[in-house]
């Protein structure tokens, strides 16, 4: 096992909401005088420093990173991810606890920190490099590589303010990508820039961590990138560590918890049940066949749609249809059964959607009740939402897979025996 390179013990960070201090110099001095010099409590100050007005962005986080590991940090917005990175990169001090680190840390929390827009690309490479912790010699050595990586050779002596935003980001990232710290800390900076360039950067980061043995700590909402790039992951929730360990497991657990919300609608009271005087919906549920209840739905998961409703009219010819839409409103399919005559009472049914059929993305389901194949009795629209996560194996490509569905129809390719007709023959 490689030695520990960062050791964070019990770190907590308290932020005050609203006004900081008492908001006025007179009050601050008064408070200081009363509190520090006379040793009395200032009643005004107490009400300001109330617990309600402060928030623990992080609470008792313990963390150990070994040399050469690549860690991903995931969690919802406001879970404390960025605060955590800032503490690790020494930008802010934790309110409690200590962080001990060895080696040179470079943090990349923003693209183009310290860039001066009036100066040329060449100047800015040096400025940015110095700010990120490289020295002059290192930058000079890597200068050509950086320029090459960014692909802005022609504009090297143009002020950065005349760059397109894409060029700006590429230049900024090129500098950052050539840092050689012992520990690299990266926040969600890859969100900018085109897909091609993102891929290039992710590839470089992956190479660095696996080949050179650089320690990488990476925050991203791109979970696919996390599970591919990182070996380990931490899941933060409201400033606390929710789970940690192998990145694929943590990412899956995280996704699972995110998606549970809207899979089931059940009504026990006829008054509140959706419907009208002919149909009352009692249950509409999506049931994925998952090997573990913690896992998210991914493209391999077979799904079952279950429904139960009360038919209030006797002996009608009824058909129930399931509609599946993408989040953008395109209908993927409209399936139904053979219409038949049903009596008054509760009816139930289900529809199976096989795995390896839907593409990754967000979907919603609607259910429609039709009488005599023509008259719509009730249309319960957009009632179930679910997300399908991506899953890829042995594929070194993280871009978005296009298409509404991703079925595995056989595609074959073989070597043809026909000779290529040569032009000079």
């Amino acid at each position: 096992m490689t030695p520990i390179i960062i050791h964070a013990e019990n770190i907590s960070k308290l932020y005050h909401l609203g006004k900081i201090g008492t908001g006025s110099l007179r009050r601050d001095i008064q408070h200081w005088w009363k509190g520090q010099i006379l040793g009395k409590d200032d009643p005004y100050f107490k009400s300001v420093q109330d617990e309600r007005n402060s928030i623990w962005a992080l609470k008792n986080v313990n963390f150990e990173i070994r040399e050469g590991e690549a860690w991903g940090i995931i969690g919802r917005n406001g879970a404390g991810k960025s605060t955590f990175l800032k503490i690790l990169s020494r930008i802010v001090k934790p309110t409690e606890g200590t962080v001990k680190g060895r080696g040179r840390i470079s943090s990349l929390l923003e693209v183009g920190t310290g860039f001066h827009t009036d100066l040329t690309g060449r100047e800015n490479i040096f400025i940015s490099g110095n700010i990120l912790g490289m020295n002059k010699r290192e930058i000079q050595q890597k200068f050509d590589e950086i320029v090459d990586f960014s692909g802005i050779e022609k504009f090297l002596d143009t002020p950065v303010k005349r760059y397109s935003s894409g060029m700006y980001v590429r230049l900024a990232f090129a500098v950052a990508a050539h840092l050689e710290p012992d520990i690299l800390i990266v926040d969600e900076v890859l969100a900018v820039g085109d897909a091609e360039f993102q891929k290039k950067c992710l590839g470089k980061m992956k190479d660095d961590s696996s080949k050179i043995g650089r320690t990488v700590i990476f925050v991203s909402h791109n979970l696919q990138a996390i599970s591919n790039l990182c070996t380990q992951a931490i899941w933060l929730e409201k400033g606390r560590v929710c789970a940690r360990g192998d990145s694929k497991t943590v990412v899956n657990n995280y996704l699972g918890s995110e998606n549970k919300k809207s899979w089931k609608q059940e009504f026990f009271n006829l008054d509140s049940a959706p419907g009208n005087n002919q149909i009352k919906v009692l249950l509409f549920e999506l049931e994925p066949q998952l090997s573990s209840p913690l896992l998210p739905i991914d493209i391999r998961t077979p799904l079952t749609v279950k429904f139960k409703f009360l038919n209030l009219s006797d002996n009608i010819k009824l058909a129930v249809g399931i509609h599946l839409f993408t989040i953008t409103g395109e209908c993927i399919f409209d399936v139904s059964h053979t219409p038949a005559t049903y009596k008054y009472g509760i009816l139930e049914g289900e529809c199976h959607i096989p795995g390896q059929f839907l593409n990754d993305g967000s979907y919603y389901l609607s259910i429609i009740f039709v009488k005599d194949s023509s008259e719509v009795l009730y249309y319960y629209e957009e009632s179930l939402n679910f997300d399908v996560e991506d899953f890829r194996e042995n594929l070194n490509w993280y871009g978005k897979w296009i298409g509404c569905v991703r079925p595995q129809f056989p595609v074959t390719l073989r070597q043809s025996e026909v000779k290529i007709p040569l032009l000079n023959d």
Partner: protein
Amino acid sequence: MRELYAYKDLLFRLVRKDFLSSYQQTLLGPFWLMFQPLVTVIIYVLVFHAVIGVSTEGIPAFLYYLIGITLWNLFSNILLNTSYAFVQSAHIFEKVYFPRLISPFSILILNLLRFGIQFLLLLLAAGYFYIFKKVDFNPGYLLFTVPVIIITSCLGFGAGLIFSIITVKYKDLLNLLDLFTRLLMFICPIFYSLAIVPKNVKWLVYLNPLSSQFEMFRYAFLGKGTFHYVDILYSIGFMICLLFAGIAIFNKWSDKLIDVV
């Protein structure tokens, strides 16, 4: 301190960046540095000398004022620019770690650089008046400028560091500081010499640690000036206190204030 040294490349890069960027897309570029005191001095010559008629002890008013203004610019620029150090760099401080003192130090060096150019102008002017025998000039006395420059810039730097911290919390103090600096200018012997200050307000000028520096600076060029070694010790003592207090306060508070800005 060792950490500061490790970041020396960054320090000089920031100086270079600020120097280059302030003269991008300008007509005169760094010549502004010479132009600006020239114009100021001409205005003061008109106002104080020609209109009001303050005595310059038989020395050409232009040179007399230029000496004072050059030193004053050094002090006030360092003080004011350093006061903005934290607010100005806060957006970088929030994203990257480096010793925070790098930022005010780069401002100090930048201002010394600018002063260097203005000092050159002052030397040219002094040389001109010397050649035309309008003033006595002893090149050996010029050595006096070295301690003056060090003491004056450290006074400005120390005070600036303290203000840079206070003003993060109370932004309106920047306006107050501006006002204070303007007032301070008039209790510095820039347009007059200590010798002509009336007895009843003399204490105020003596209390000002800069006063002896202006007298000494003038002495270096003109061989005239009234200063006592006690005044100089007072200035040095004041400087040491201010400088150490400034650095200590800046170091202590810069970590905490990141959460405030």
